[in-house]
């Protein structure tokens, strides 16, 4: 019993042009993402994994191929997609409440309904008391939660996390990944995470997609099945299979210190 396909990536390639020449970043990527699925994409640095995410988000146009979300071709940013850039990117001059409303403002969708929805999420995720605070007054974890609520406020079908936790220190990162995963599961969202952290990729995802060196092609896809009591990212790291996945993916990435 498979869930319905939400995102269809069909033969996507991307070539970048610069005065020095052209660089082929992605080559012939095809991938289907099911509704409610959590997919991680890993690959050596510069393999175009962020480019792939930007193409799904409609921020970058593919040179060939196309991406379909709910059967509609992606031609530009839409509210079907919630994009989370590196680090939280909260606006320091806005209060948490006004940060959360940012996406709705841009989409011209601020109304009593959406506001109520955002307020509810702030309450659920323990930020309601901080709605009038400025981002600088919050801890790293709280900021990340606020950023996630900002993305969820536009009610997207799919969340794209672009190295979203890489700016955090290791301890905070583990906790935040845990929180984010729980919120995404609870809100029943589909998500794609791009990361260079193999453990993070395995512990959060249902499937891990491994890309090759530039130009990025799909090298392998791992269905992640872990036997662990609590299915949180931190709990999953305890599973006996975790090491096997880690070692396999590590070998596939083929990293050599130079």
């Amino acid at each position, binding site marked *: 019993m498979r869930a319905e396909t939400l995102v269809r990536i069909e033969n996507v390639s991307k070539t970048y042009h610069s005065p020095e020449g052209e660089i082929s970043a992605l080559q012939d990527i095809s991938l289907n993402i099911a509704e409610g699925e959590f997919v991680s994409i890993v690959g050596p640095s510069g393999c175009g994994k962020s480019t792939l995410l930007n193409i799904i988000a409609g921020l970058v146009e593919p040179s060939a191929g196309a991406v379909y979300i709910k059967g509609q071709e992606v031609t530009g940013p839409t509210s079907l997609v*919630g994009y989370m850039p*590196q680090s939280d*990117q909260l*606006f320091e001059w*806005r209060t948490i409440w006004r940060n959360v409303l940012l*996406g709705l403002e841009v*989409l011209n969708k601020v109304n009593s309904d959406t506001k109520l929805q955002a307020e509810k999420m702030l309450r659920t995720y323990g930020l309601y008391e901080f709605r009038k605070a*400025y981002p*600088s007054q919050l801890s790293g974890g709280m900021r990340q939660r606020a950023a996630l609520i900002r993305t969820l406020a*536009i009610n997207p079908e799919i969340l794209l996390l672009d190295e979203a936790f890489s700016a955090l220190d290791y301890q905070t990162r583990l906790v935040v990944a845990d929180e984010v995963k729980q919120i995404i599961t609870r809100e029943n969202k589909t998500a794609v995470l791009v990361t260079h952290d193999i453990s993070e990729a395995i512990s959060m995802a249902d499937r891990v997609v491994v890309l090759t060196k530039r130009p990025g092609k799909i090298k392998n896809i791992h269905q992640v099945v872990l036997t662990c009591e609590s299915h949180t990212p931190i709990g999953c790291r305890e599973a006996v299979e975790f090491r096997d996945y880690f070692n396999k993916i590590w070998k596939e990435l083929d990293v050599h210190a130079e």
Partner: protein
Amino acid sequence: MPNKPTISQEHLAYLHGKKLYRKRVVAAQILLLIGFIAFWEVAAALRWIDPFIASQPTRIVKTLISLHREGTLYHHIGVTVLETVAGFTLGTIMGTVIAIALWWSDFLAEVLDPYLVVINSLPKVALGPILIVWLGQGMRAIVTMALFVSLIVTIIGVYTGFSQVDENKIKLLKSFGASKMQILQKVILPASVPTIISALKINVGLSWVGAIVGEFLVSRAGLGYLIVYGGQVFRLDLVMASVIILCIAAALMYQLVIIFEKIVLKWQ
């Protein structure tokens, strides 16, 4: 709060030492000023220096009092302050507007770049005679001068500030489907408020230069006029009195900008 502030003896001693040091600095600052004025007064009284050329604190005070009695003092201060405020306000607003245009069109920015560099390195006071011919011998020429002195610096400073706004913040807005106008309103301008205010701080100083130089060239009123007039008729008391008022006015205006900054940037 996780840890309650229990102050140890050592920390108290540290704080006390800090406070004491601060007091010493302020005391030294006041003493330096008093010492300088006293020395000036005595040196002139004992004829070590010629009070006709170097003036003398008591004579400056007398000049100030008589200017105050005549009522002309406030007129002169008002004229110069008005010219300066008009100069830096217009300079900051116009500079920001032009910077927005440059941000909007990369093509325009690249085309205008060499011209901005050349005009920036030109001493703007050299344009004085041209402005007088074009705009007449009055306040208009002086305000334009005060404006010109700060305009190019503002354009370059604010435009640089615009281009340094975090790419990821812009990307976030784009992912919501934001238009260029929305990007300008929601991230470029608010993120650049600190840059614009620091431009404002620089412009306050530059506009005083513009206004005073403008008054040197033309005008029948203002502190610059008093300074030039005093110099021409060898009334150094008048020149010194005007310079001191200028010092105080410039310092006060700078403080106002600092207060404005604190209000606008309360989120910092």
